[in-house]
Structure formats: C-alpha cells, structure tokens
C-alpha cells in the first residue's frame, strides 16, 4: 500500500498500469470503430437531402466535438498540475496536445470535404469551421510552446498556463465568431440543415463515437508513457527498462 503513496513508485505503477490497459482499450476501439464505420458506410441510409455525402458526418462530428473535449481535458490536467502540483497531470496534458491537433485538423478537412458538395466551395467562413480553425491554432500554440523549452517540467508548466488561458478564451472566441458570422452572412448561405437522424443513423454514430473515444484514450496512453519516461530518465527503473529494451 505504501508503494502507491511513495512518490518514486507512483510514475512507475502508472506506467505499468497504462501499459497493461493499452491492449484492452485498443481491442475495444478497433471493434467499436469497425462496427460503427462499416455500418455508417454500408448499411445506414443516405440523408434525404444530402445523399451519401452525409456519411462524412460519422467522422466529422466525433472529431470536431472530441477535439474540443481533448482541449478541456488538457485544461483540467493543467489545473491539477498547477493547483495540486501533480507531476503526472503535467505529463498527461503534454500527451494530449498533438492528439487534439490531429483531430481538429481531421474535423477541418472533413468539414471542407463535406462543404464542397453542399456549399459549392471548399472553405466557407462558417462559424463552426472558423472556431475549429482557431482551436487548431490554440493547439499548435501549446505544442510549439512545449517544444520551445528544453526542460520538460518547465515546458509542462508553461504550456499548462497557456492551456488555462486558452480554455477561458474558447467560449469567448466561439461566441464572438458566431456573432461575427451572423452579422456578415445572414441567411444567404444554405447552412447544413439539422439532419433528421433516424435510428439507423444514430446507432452507427454512437458506435463510431465511442470507438473514437477509446482510440483517443489509447493514443493518449502511448504518449503519456513516453512523457513519463522522458521526465523520469534519471530514475533507476526507467534506466533498467531502457537498457532491457535495447537487447
């Protein structure tokens, strides 16, 4: 029991625990994603207005909402690290940033690819796309700040402060962009109408959404473990692990 409380043992146990969890989460994610996306591509009905282009929805919406979720997750981790000085929280925030950036990018690309047939143009200064673009900038800023420091602990703290400043700003940015959007575009552009979801559409969506969540958890675990190693390079257990992996 005391080993759990012992500060040196803690990163080690977390490292091994996440290592054991990764395979299970990967299986879960693969199964859920396969079911969800095969259902989405093959069996779910086409939208009565948007036709088969609606199938982009099954990756666009999860990646868009989850990218926001990852930022919030990072902010919570940053708060834990600043308020309670949790060293592992730092590492987990650092692990999440690139994943968030990738999912934000995916949501932008799929949004553009969905928009081209719907609006006739790849990019439109739609409120959701614009705030997603700004979210991408915020992610890139956090990553860039993280890379600029040599010392991982300092990098984590600095990036944490930036993340918190960002998370306070996100609602303001979102609101301002929406407000700006209605001001300048009015009703002239045919917006993506709220698709009427049937159950046949809802189920594959739920499956793929859950699949994406577990996928994010798996990648976070992988990166989290790397961060733990990089931050504890001077500990004997890390060195033993590294030397063992060599042979």
């Amino acid at each position: 029991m005391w080993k759990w409380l012992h500060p040196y043992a803690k990163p080690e146990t977390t490292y091994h625990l996440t290592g054991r969890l990764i395979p299970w989460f990967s299986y879960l994610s693969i199964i859920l994603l396969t079911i969800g996306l095969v259902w989405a591509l093959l069996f779910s009905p086409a939208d009565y207005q948007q036709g088969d282009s609606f199938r982009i929805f099954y990756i666009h919406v999860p990646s868009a909402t989850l990218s926001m979720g990852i930022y919030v997750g990072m902010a919570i981790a940053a708060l834990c690290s600043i308020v309670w000085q949790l060293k592992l929280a730092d590492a987990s925030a650092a692990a999440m940033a690139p994943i968030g950036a990738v999912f934000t990018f995916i949501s932008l690309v799929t949004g553009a690819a969905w928009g081209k047939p719907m609006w006739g143009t790849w990019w439109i200064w739609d409120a959701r796309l614009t705030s997603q673009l700004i979210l991408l900038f915020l992610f890139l800023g956090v990553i860039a700040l993280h890379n600029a420091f040599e010392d991982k602990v300092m990098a984590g703290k600095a990036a944490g402060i930036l993340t918190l400043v960002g998370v306070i700003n996100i609602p303001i940015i979102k609101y301002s962009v929406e407000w700006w959007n209605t001001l300048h575009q009015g009703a002239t552009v045919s917006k993506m109408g709220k698709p009427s979801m049937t159950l046949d559409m809802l189920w594959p969506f739920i499956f793929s959404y859950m699949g994406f969540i577990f996928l994010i958890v798996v990648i976070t675990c992988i990166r989290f473990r790397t961060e733990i190693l990089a931050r504890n390079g001077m500990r004997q257990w890390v060195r033993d692990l590294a030397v063992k992996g060599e042979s």
Partner: protein
Amino acid sequence: MSDTAITSQLNQPIALSYRSAFMLILKRDVTLAFRHKDDIINPILFFIIVITLFPLGIGPEANTLSRIAPGIIWVAALLSTLLSLDRLFKSDYNDGSLEQMLLSPHPIFILVLAKIVAHWLLTGLPLIFIAPLLAVLLHLNENSYGALMITLLLGTPILSLIGAIGVALTVGIKKGGVLLSLLVLPLYIPVLIFATSAIDTAAMNLPFTGQLAIIAALFFSTLTLAPFAVSSALKVSTN
C-alpha cells in the same frame, strides 16, 4: 543585543505601500523608454507603414478602402502591439532586474500590473492619437471616428494585458518572437471582431453600445485575471 535586533527585523512592516510600489515601477519603465526612444517610436512607425501599405496593395478606390478601414487599422494595431511586447520583460529578464522584482516584498501582481500599464502608456496610447489621422488616409466613414477612438481606448489595454501573458511565457526562450505571435494572436480575435464591428455599426449610424459593453467586459475581466496569469508565467520562466 543582536538577538533583539534580528527579531525586530523579522517583523518589520512593509515599508512601501502598494500604490507607491506601483508608481515606482511605472515611473522607472517610462523613464527607461524615454531614454531609449526607439522603443516608443518604432512600433508607431510600423503601425503607420503597415496602414499605408494596404491602399498600395488593394487600390485607391475610396469605397473599398472605407469599407475595410476598421479592419486594417485594428489588424495593424494588433501587429504593432505584438512587435512592442518583447520589451515588456525581455531586457529585465536578460539583465537580472526581473529576478530582483520577483524577490521584492511586494505582491508580484502589483509589479506586473505596473509594467503592463507602462507598456500601454507607451504603445497603446500613441496609437489612439495617430489612428484618426491614418483613418483619414483610408477614407473611414465620418460617423466612425468616435467609435474608432473608443474601441482603441478600451481595446488596446486588452492587447497589452493578453500579450503580457505571452511574453511572460516566452521570456526565457531564446527565439521567442515568432512563437509569441502564435500564442497571442488567436487570443486577440474576440477584441478584433467586436471592435471592428462596433466601428462598422457606427458607420451605419446605428448605436454600437452592445459591442462596446462586450469590449468593456473583456477589458475588466482581463484586467483582473491577466496579471495573475502573468505572475505565475514569470515564476515558471525564471525558474
């Protein structure tokens, strides 16, 4: 004898009030800037040059220019603030004065706020006086001048406050300049949107108090929150 001396020293009261500490730093920063005038003049010149570039790039039609004038002036203000942010903490960091300030017996909040106010007085305030002159060059709608001045008055302090967070985070990094813009510019977006929209609304002779209220709310919330973020960022950077 020395025993009593020490114990009496341990309980000595703060010799400097918050107000005088604030004034001390403010006066020092302003004096330093006036001794080193490039720091004040260069961002202003930059502001002027950027604004004159737009008509050259877009064409001299008065209609087009007057339509995009608010955006141009505000984007130029963002960029020139960004350019001047570096001197907020960089030179103090490099010569060790920043350490001494962090170790002074005053709350860092006060010191940081004084430095930001000094920065705004030296870069934000001049912009407010020059902007109307440049607006003439851009054929800004006559009704918009008031809105331009008020949004700049309320908005440029926000730029200094948010920018200070970015500088405090990057002050220890050798090549922090480009990184700073990546960190800070996305956070400037709301100010840009509401300020330009206030100016546009004023051009249509409509009331723009709504936008102004939002900018004021942004101003007061950054004024209370940003110094805390800056002080914790400085503690990380000087670590």
